[in-house]
């Protein structure tokens, strides 16, 4: 990846009590989703209660990190920094083996080679800013 410009307008997500374990895990190369101990369902994004049964008995669950591309686009126009310098790049919806879907980037292959249904595996891209850094889950061909 090219070095990203450090701009005052582009900050990192701030971890709070609910999301700190998620960002701590990505920094150590693990992708977490939430599991409801009450009704047994997985859910995402992380929150402290189950959106289905409202149980507050929820736990973190390590995702396998593998999934498939559900849909994607090759972005060819975006004036917002730092993405203008990254063009073209791929934004995709990835469906994890656990069933949850997330919006992410596909890296590690030519944008033209991405396909729906393509098997992908999570990787973690460091995003460094003046205030520190985080590791963002992105996906690469499996």
């Amino acid at each position, binding site marked *: 990846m090219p070095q990203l410009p450090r701009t005052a307008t582009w900050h990192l997500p701030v971890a*709070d009590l609910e999301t700190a374990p998620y960002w701590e895990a990505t920094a150590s190369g693990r992708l977490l989703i939430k599991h409801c101990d009450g009704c047994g*369902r997985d*859910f995402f994004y992380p929150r402290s209660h189950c959106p289905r049964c409202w149980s507050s008995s929820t736990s973190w669950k390590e995702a396998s990190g593998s999934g498939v591309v559900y*849909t994607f686009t090759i972005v060819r126009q*975006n004036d917002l920094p730092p993405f203008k310098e*990254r063009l073209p790049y791929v934004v995709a919806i990835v469906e994890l083996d656990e069933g949850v879907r997330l919006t992410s980037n596909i890296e590690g292959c030519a944008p033209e080679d991405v396909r729906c249904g393509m098997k992908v595996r999570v990787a973690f891209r460091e995003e460094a800013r003046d205030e520190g850094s985080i590791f963002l889950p992105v996906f690469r061909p499996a």
Partner: protein
Amino acid sequence: MSKDVAVLGAGMHPWGKWGRNFVEYGVHAARAALADAGVDWQDVQFIAGGETVRNGYAGYVAGSSIAQALGWSGARVATAYAACASGASAIDIARARILAGLCDVALVVGADTTPKGFLAPSGGTRTQDPDWLRFFLLGATNPTYFAFYARRRMELYGSTEKDWAAVKIKNARHGLSNPNARYRKEVTEEEILASAMVSEPLRLLNICTTSDGGAAVLLTSLEYARKKGISDPVKVSAVSTVTPRFPKTVIDLPDIATDSAAAAAPPELTFRDSIAAAAYEEADLGPEDLDLAEVYDLSTALELDWYENIGLCKEGEAERLIRDGDTTLGGRIPVNPSGGLACFGEAVPAQAIAQVCEVTWQLQGRAQGRQVEDANVGLTINQGLFGHGSSVILTK
């Protein structure tokens, strides 16, 4: 008790890139709607505004900003924000007050002044706002999401660029004679297929632009309309503003994550399906009753999704509808006779109201140059960010 309210007047400020204060467009549209209804501003008991988030504090309180410009009158006021569904939310509030017997005459207005280019994230640094994160961490612009849906149509149903071009060509023709449309020019398949790739597979001419504009409707109780001597007004018979259901498995703008369908089957209807279904249920009508529809063609491919969402055809059959001319003026069920967002561009808080203006004029037989014959029932539908969406059914 009837759940209907009357649309006594409709008015718009032409869409364009005028660069003036949004209040000016709102006032223009409001005065046009009042004149259309033959009702004085002093007789309006309630004004509802659609909020614009790109015009400072005056935009956050759009209802009162426009009321002040019209002249303080002591009317009650509210401002609604529901992203692209803001105008319909304002209509819903006005309708509820009328049906509750709290007022007889309500004015609903939406207006916007938009910056150049794609809609950018709204100002400020909000690192826990999904809308902010998708823009700044993932580079996911609005067209990115339109492209997600278009790619799914390609994968599932073999949708092609030529199908999407057919949508644009149709809407461009529909809008030719609409005095409020920003673009009134035919476009060819060659021009569309040669336009710049923005977010693959969508090109520039597949994506709607952003516009300035204003729209207003004057709603009244049926009794008030009768007293004015109007016994058969166009009526609002349903306003749907439903939210999604768990597990929501479709990623909608600006979602960056969604529930799993692995342990719980997704609802029978997708979110977009459910917006229309709730409107049909409320109006006690179905897709077979429609004479026309105004759907939110943020992209040409998205218009095809809406055909299925509102029940004009089964999933995967929308391409056949556009190819066969079913949704063209003169066809079985004309869609976007106004020209749609393809000819207007999006003026967010005004757009859902503009859809209602068009259907009103169609049902009144006043849509010159784009009239749907014998139009008695029309539906509008759109989807906004964060689980907002709306559908309005109008009847004669």
